[in-house]
C-alpha cells in the first residue's frame, strides 16, 4: 500500500510540474521572456507544493498508524484478557493477533483473538485507504491552490530556492538530531536503569552478573551490576591493542615519511591502510581461527596455560586493525613539521635518525598524541573483534592470559535476542552505552583539539 501511495504522490508531483510549467507559459502567451522566472521554476514551485506536504503527511501517518491501531486493538479486547498484563505480555498478545490476521494460526486461539484478528485486518485496510485518500486530496489541494497563484510577475525562482534552502537546512539539522537522538535515548534508558540500580553501585561495584534476573519474589541471589570489571577489561584490551599498534604504526610512519623512496611510499601506504578497511567481523574470525590457537599452542609449548579467548589475543588482533590509524595520523604529524626544522638539523650534521628522534618526533608529539587518543577511542568502541575473541564473563583480573570482557561485548550480549524494555538487564546495556559514548566523545574532543591546535601552530 505504501508503495502505491508513494507512486501516486510521485505521479501527482510530476503532473504538478508539467501543469505549472504549461500554465506559466500560457499566461505569458508562449513568451518565456515575459515571465519573472524560467517556466521550469513555476513547475517546480507547484510540484513542491503538491509533493512535500503530502509526503510529510504520509510519514507522520505511518509513524502513528501502528501504535494507534495497537492501542485501539487493545481497547477493543474484552477486559479479562488485558487485565494485569505486563508490557511484554501485551506485545505478545498483539503479535499473536497480527499473526492470526495474516492466517498463521498456531494451535487453537480463542474467539476473542480471532475476532480481533479480523478487526485488525479491517482497521489496517481502513487506515491505508484513508491515508491514500488524505494524501491524494492534499496533493490536489496543493495543485489547485498554487496553480491559481501563478502569474507572470510571480517570483517563482525565489520561492523554489527558498524551499531548497529549507530542505538543506533540515538535512543539516538531521546531523544534530542524530546526536540528540543518541544522547536522549541513552540518557532516558540509562536513567530508567539508575532508578533500579544505584549509579554508585554501577560505577564502582566489583561484581558484574547481569544475566541473573532481578525479581521481587526471587529466592536466589540477585544479579549484580557493578561495572568495574567490565571497565577494567575494556582498558586492558585497549592497552594491548595500543602495545601492538603504537610501535608498528609509529615506526611505519617514520620509515615512510623519512627514509622511503616516494615510489615505495606510494605503494606501501595504501597497502597498510587496507588493514583499516577490513570489516571488524573478519578480524574477529581471524582471531578465533588463527591467532588464538597459535597463541595457546605457543604458550603451552613454553609450559604456560592460556585461555583460548585471552585478553592478549583480543587486544593484539584489535591492535592490527588500529595500525593504520596510528601510522597515517603520525605520518600527517611528522610531515607537518616545517621543512626549516629538518634542514636546520641536517645543517648541524645530525644523521637522519638523530633528526627524527630529537627534532621531528618531539615537534610532532602533540599530533602523534592526538592520533593515539583517537586510536584509543576507536579501540574502546570496537565491538566485533571483542565479541568474537574476548570473554563474556566479567572477571576482575589483569592477567593477559585470562579472558576479560568489555563494555561493547556486554552491550551486544545483553541486547542480542529478544529484548524487553523494562528489565534491568536490557537497560544496563544503555547505561554502558552512555558511559561508552561519553568516554569516546571526550577522547575525540580532546584529540581533535590537540591536533587542531598543533596544526595551527605551524601553519
Amino acid at each position, binding site marked *: 500500500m505504501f508503495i502505491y501511495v508513494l507512486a501516486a504522490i510521485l505521479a501527482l508531483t510530476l503532473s504538478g510540474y508539467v501543469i505549472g510549467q504549461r500554465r506559466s507559459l500560457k499566461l505569458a502567451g508562449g513568451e518565456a521572456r515575459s515571465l519573472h522566472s524560467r517556466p521550469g521554476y513555476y513547475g517546480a514551485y507547484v510540484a513542491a507544493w503538491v509533493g512535500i506536504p503530502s509526503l510529510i503527511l504520509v510519514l507522520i501517518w505511518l509513524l502513528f498508524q501502528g501504535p494507534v491501531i495497537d492501542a485501539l486493538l487493545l481497547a477493543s479486547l474484552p477486559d479479562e484478557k488485558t487485565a494485569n498484563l505486563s508490557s511484554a505480555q501485551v506485545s505478545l498478545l498483539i503479535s499473536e493477533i497480527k499473526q492470526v490476521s495474516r492466517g498463521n494460526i498456531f494451535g487453537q486461539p480463542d474467539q476473542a483473538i480471532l475476532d480481533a484478528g479480523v478487526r485488525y485486518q479491517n482497521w489496517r485496510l481502513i487506515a491505508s485507504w484513508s491515508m491514500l485518500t488524505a494524501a491524494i486530496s492534499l496533493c490536489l489541494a496543493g495543485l489547485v491552490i498554487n496553480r491559481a497563484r501563478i502569474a507572470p510577475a510571480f517570483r517563482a525562482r525565489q520561492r523554489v530556492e527558498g524551499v531548497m534552502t529549507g530542505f538543506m537546512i533540515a538535512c543539516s539539522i538531521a546531523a*544534530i538530531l542524530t546526536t540528540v537522538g543518541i544522547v536522549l535515548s541513552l540518557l532516558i534508558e540509562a536513567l530508567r536503569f539508575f532508578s533500579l540500580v544505584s549509579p554508585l553501585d554501577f560505577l564502582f561495584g566489583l561484581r558484574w552478573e547481569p544475566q541473573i534476573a532481578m525479581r521481587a519474589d526471587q529466592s536466589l541471589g540477585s544479579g549484580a551490576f557493578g561495572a568495574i570489571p567490565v571497565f577494567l577489561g575494556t582498558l586492558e584490551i585497549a592497552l594491548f591493542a595500543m602495545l601492538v599498534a603504537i610501535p608498528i604504526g609509529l615506526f611505519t610512519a*617514520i620509515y615512510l615519511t623519512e627514509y622511503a623512496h616516494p615510489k615505495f611510499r606510494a605503494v606501501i601506504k595504501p597497502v*597498510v591502510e587496507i588493514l583499516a*578497511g577490513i570489516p571488524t567481523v573478519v578480524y574477529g574470525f581471524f582471531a578465533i581461527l588463527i591467532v588464538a590457537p597459535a597463541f595457546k599452542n605457543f604458550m603451552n609449548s613454553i609450559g604456560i596455560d592460556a585461555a583460548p579467548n585471552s585478553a592478549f589475543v583480543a587486544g593484539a588482533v584489535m591492535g592490527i586493525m588500529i595500525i593504520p590509524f596510528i601510522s597515517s595520523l603520525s605520518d600527517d604529524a611528522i610531515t607537518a613539521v616545517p621543512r626549516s626544522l629538518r634542514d636546520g638539523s641536517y645543517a648541524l650534521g645530525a644523521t637522519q635518525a638523530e633528526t627524527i628522534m630529537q627534532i621531528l618526533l618531539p615537534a610532532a608529539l602533540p599530533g602523534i598524541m592526538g592520533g593515539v587518543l583517537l586510536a584509543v577511542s576507536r579501540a574502546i568502541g570496537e565491538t566485533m573483534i571483542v*565479541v568474537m575473541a574476548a570473554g563474556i564473563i566479567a572477571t576482575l583480573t589483569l592477567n593477559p592470559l585470562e579472558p576479560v570482557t568489555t563494555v561493547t561485548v556486554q552491550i551486544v550480549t545483553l541486547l*542480542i535476542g529478544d529484548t524487553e524494555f523494562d528489565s534491568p538487564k536490557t537497560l544496563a546495556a544503555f547505561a554502558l552505552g552512555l558511559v561508552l559514548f561519553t568516554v*569516546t566523545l571526550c577522547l575525540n574532543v580532546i584529540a581533535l583539539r590537540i591536533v587542531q591546535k598543533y596544526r595551527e601552530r605551524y601553519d
Partner: protein
Amino acid sequence: MTDATLDTNVGSRLGVDWASEANARRLKKRYAANRRLQFYGLTAIALAIGLLGTLVSSLVVEGYKAFYQSKATLEIRLDPADIDPKNLADANYRRIFNTAIERYVPEAKTPAEKRQLSDIFSSEARYALRDYVLAHPEQIGQTIKLKVSLSDPFDQLEKGVIPRYVDALSSSETSRFEALAGRGLIEGRGADAAMKVSLSIDPQKVSSADIGAGRFRDIIADGLLATLGNPNAVGAAWPMLRDDVADVLKAYVIAHPDSIGQRLENFKLPLSPNYAALASGETPKVFNQRFASEKQFEWLDRLKAQGALSYPFASELLLNPTSRFPELAGLAGAIVGSFYALVVCFLISFPLGIAAAVYLEEFARRNRWTDLIEVNINNLAAVPSVVFGLLGLAVFLNSFGLPRSAPLVGGMVLALITLPTIIITTRAALKAVPPSVREAALGIGASKHQVVMHHVLPLAMPGIMTGVIIGLAHALGETAPLLLIGMNAFIPSIENIGLLEPATALPTQIYAWADSPERGFVARTSAAILVLLAFLVVMNGIAIFLRQRFERKW
C-alpha cells in the same frame, strides 16, 4: 682553500680531532643508530603487511574449500509404482532415494546400517530428487542420474579437512609408554614387542591342582605394581598390554608347573597392537571414528572407485539461503538482505548528506549554529558504531515501532553511520572546485542556487560519488549495529525477503556461521568473508576508478 684544510682548521679551532679514532668510532655508532632506526621501520612495515598477508592467505586457505562441493552421481530408478503421476510432490522420495543408494551397498541390511548409509548423503538429497521429478515428469519409469551432495562430515573427509586416520594414542599415552621404554622395560619389535615385568607366581592365587582357575590377572597386577611403583601407573599400563595377556601367562604356567611359588624375572608380557607398533617406531593410526564409522568409509571408497564422486563448483554457496547443514548453507539471503539495507542506506544518506554538505559549504554563514553543526558532524564520525545500534534499538524499534530485524531499520541505522563520512567527503569535494567557477557563473547573472546546482555540484560529483561509495563499502562491513537491531535472523528461505521482513546481512551471517559448531562452517565462514571482501574490493575499485577517471585537477 680546499675542503680538507677547512675541515682541519675548524677542527683544530674547536679542539676537536675529526680524524681521531674515538671520533671514527662515534661516527660509526651514530650511523649504526641510523641504520637501526631504518631497520625498525622496515620491520614494522614488514610486520604490518605480513599480518595483512597472513589474514588474507589464511582465509583463502580455509575458504577455497567451500567453493567446491563433494557430490555423488547416483543412478536412481523412478519406479512408476512409487510415484503417483497426478500427485508428484507427495511421493515418498526419501524411500525412493534410499532404495537407490541401497542398490549400491547391498550389504547394508539392518535399519542402523541403512541409516548410516543415508547419512553419507546430504539431507537435501530427497528434495533434489523431488525437484528433479517435478521438472521431468516424463522420466518416471526410467533410471535417472542425479548429483547429490555428500553430508558435511563426508564432504570434509573428501576435502581432507577431517583426517581419515587419527593417531591411535594420545600424546600423554605415548609419552608414558616412552618413559617405560626409557627404563628398559620394553623389548622387541612388532608382534614380539613385550613389556618385561617380574612376576611372582603366588601359590595362593594359582594352585598346582587346578592351574586353569588361577587368578593370573591379579598376578600380573601385582607384578606391575611392584615394577611401576604406584597404582596410577598400573592403571595406565594395562591398556599397553595385549587383551589376552593373562592367557599368555596361564599357558606359560601350564607348560611350566614348577614355576608356581617361584619368581619369574623379566617375564615378557606381549604388547597390544597399537603399542607394539609404537615400540617398532611407527605411529599407530586408527580410523577416525568421531564423524563416521569404518563401514561408511568403505562404502564411500566404493562409490569413489566407481567414479561416482565429483567435486564441482559449489553454486549452493552463492544461491542457497542459510541452513543448519553446512553443505547446504549459502549466502543468497544475506546478500539480498545486505543489498536492501544498502539501498535504503543510499536513498537516505545520499540526498541528506549532499544537501547538508552543500548548505554548510556554500550557503551557511559562519555563526555559532553552523559551528555547532560542524563540530557535531566531526564527532559523529568518531562515535562507535555500536552506539548507533543502541539508537536504532531505542528510537526506530522501541519508539517508532518499526519491525525488528528488518532491512529498512538496518539501512536507516547504516545511513546515520555513513552520513557524517558522506558530509565530510562532499564538503572536501565542493571545496576543491575553484572559486573562479562560482565567480564566473555569478558574473553572468546566475543566482547562488543556480551556481551551485548548475556548476559546482556537477563538477564535484565524481569526488562526491567516490566518498559515497567508500561510505557504502564501510556500511556493508558494519556488524555490531545490525546485531543490536536483530538483523541476524535465521532466514532459511529467500522467497519473502522484503524491506519490512526479518532478514540477515553478510557480516551478521559471517558472525552467525563463525559461531556454529559444525566443522564445515569454518570453510563456509572463510568463504563468506572472501565474498564480502570481494564486494568491498569491487566497490573500492569503482571508487578509485571514478576518482582517477573523472576527477579534475584544477
